[in-house]
């Protein structure tokens, strides 16, 4: 009865994931191709101050006469690249340490857990803020390091808890009695159980990273003009929201589309 009713539901959610996936692919394409197609994001032309959208300039020009669509493409690329890099780093670090802590236990587990207990109480934004603010103006390395450092602990905690549960389960005990070896435990037990979890965490982590970056841009810490960044673009456009609403609307829509599509990619049952 229960297994029967599950089947149509699964296909339904799978179909629904096409929409966010398509939006995300379009955004990635825009970020990858845009910077090559459109004019420089920094080229100013004060004579075209707040020029409204037209066929040649689909999103118009900003207060310095810079091409908004070009700036948007660069900003999207920056968001996606930095978020993916920092999430990948955090995921790799957290997963490796988490699995090691769960598998080896003992002092290694105690030390790593002690460190993670301290990190878990530190707001990610605080860490990113410190890194971004105190590094060389406009250096993206600090931002990347801050984002990765702020996020690894989440992967560590989740992976450690889940891996400890899996490694202590009857299934792994049975595998040991069957003398199946470590590779079997990793391939058949750990990876299949962790994969969906990590995918969910990674898509959430991307959202967190993108939002954190735009927030920093908005409060003008770490990311400074004239860099094209979504949060910065929103701050810069805000004073002109009456005269040129498209100026603020464009980065807001891209930001929202990015986060919504990333959130929509998660599986329904994994929603957090």
């Amino acid at each position: 009865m229960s297994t029967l009713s599950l089947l149509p539901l699964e296909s339904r959610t799978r179909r629904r994931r096409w929409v966010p996936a398509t939006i995300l692919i379009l955004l990635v394409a825009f970020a990858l191709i845009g910077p090559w197609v459109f004019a420089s994001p920094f080229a100013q032309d004060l004579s075209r101050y707040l020029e409204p959208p037209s066929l040649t300039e689909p999103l118009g020009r900003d207060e310095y006469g810079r091409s908004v669509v070009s700036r948007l493409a660069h900003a999207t690329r920056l968001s996606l690249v930095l978020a993916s890099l920092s999430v990948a780093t955090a995921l790799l670090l957290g997963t490796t340490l988490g699995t090691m802590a769960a598998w080896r236990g003992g002092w290694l587990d105690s030390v790593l857990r002690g460190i993670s207990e301290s990190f878990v109480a530190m707001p990610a934004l605080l860490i990113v803020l410190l890194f971004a603010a105190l590094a060389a103006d406009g250096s993206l390395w600090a931002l990347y390091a801050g984002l990765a450092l702020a996020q690894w602990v989440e992967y560590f905690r989740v992976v450690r808890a889940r891996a400890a549960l899996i490694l202590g389960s009857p299934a792994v005990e049975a595998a040991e009695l069957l003398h199946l070896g470590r590779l079997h435990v990793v391939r058949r037990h750990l990876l299949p159980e962790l994969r969906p979890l990590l995918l969910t965490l990674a898509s959430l982590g991307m959202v967190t990273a993108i939002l954190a970056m735009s927030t920093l841009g908005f409060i003008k810490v770490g990311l400074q003009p004239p860099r094209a960044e979504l949060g910065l673009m929103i701050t810069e456009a805000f004073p002109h929201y009456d005269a040129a609403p498209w100026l603020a609307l464009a980065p807001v829509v891209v930001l929202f589309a990015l986060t919504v599509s990333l959130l929509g990619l998660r599986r329904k049952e994994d929603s957090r």
Partner: protein
Amino acid sequence: MTGIRRTGEVLLKRSGQALGVALAVSILCFVVVQRLPGDVSYRIAAGRYGYDLVDNAAAAAVAAELGLDRPAWQQFGSWLAALAQGDLGRSLVTSRPVGEELAFYLLGTLQLTGAALLVAILIGGSVGVLAARHPGSLVDHLATTWVASVRALPPFLLGLLLVLVFSVQLGWLPAVGHGNSTSLVLPAMTLGLGLSGLVARVTRETVINVWSSSYVQFAHTRGIRERLVLLRHVLRNSAVVLVPYLGAQAILLIEGVIVVESLFAWQGLGHALVHAVFWRDIPMLQATALALALLVVSLNTVVDLIVLRLDPRPRRAGALA
């Protein structure tokens, strides 16, 4: 007996965490400060005298005065030693004791977080319960949409939106400032609304789960009236799940505080932190970062103690967030 022992365990564990956090924040701040590119003393001197009046001599004087010319480990050691005695130093910008300023900003942050939590729990809780009692209804769908969009919006956008509507268009509320009661409304709404989506979703799921639990079903078949079942069994058991969840959101709350305070120029720790970052005011920076992190630990401690009172069962291992 066991109650006291369990309280002791919680306090011990959280104090350990607080110490670890203090150390981690201090180290982090110092590592970052050591890698500072621009001359710190120059920035500070500029902060004091203005960019037009500052020169290298003034900057060197500032550096010597503040001990910034000493080796890093000496600075770190003396800061830790002072911290252990409760001395947070003086602000490099205002020259006032950091402790005093911290107390002022802490009060502002506590006001804001308290009001925001109230908003989040009132709105999120009631929407969640409504959605749980009528799954699949219009309220339920609206709640789901609300949850998703709030998660996808950065808090500053929500804040801008509220400013546009209530301050600029309607002119009902002041956009920025600190002091009178109406200036609290917009920041608290921004922060509270941002959290309310999460609260609503978890409330909904918890109430649905508890309502379908064996003990609530059993209470029904014993003929106990629905409202009594809600009061005696559903509320408390839902709280057992919800309160720790709220505790786990303390981090989000504090992150929101940093943004919202900067956006609305609300005189709190987050605002002070961003200012300290901007002026390279290192003692102030360390102190505010430390205070924000410790605030997270304190909130979690309060949550732990409430859960101990609510739930007589022994804690499951690893449930401490």
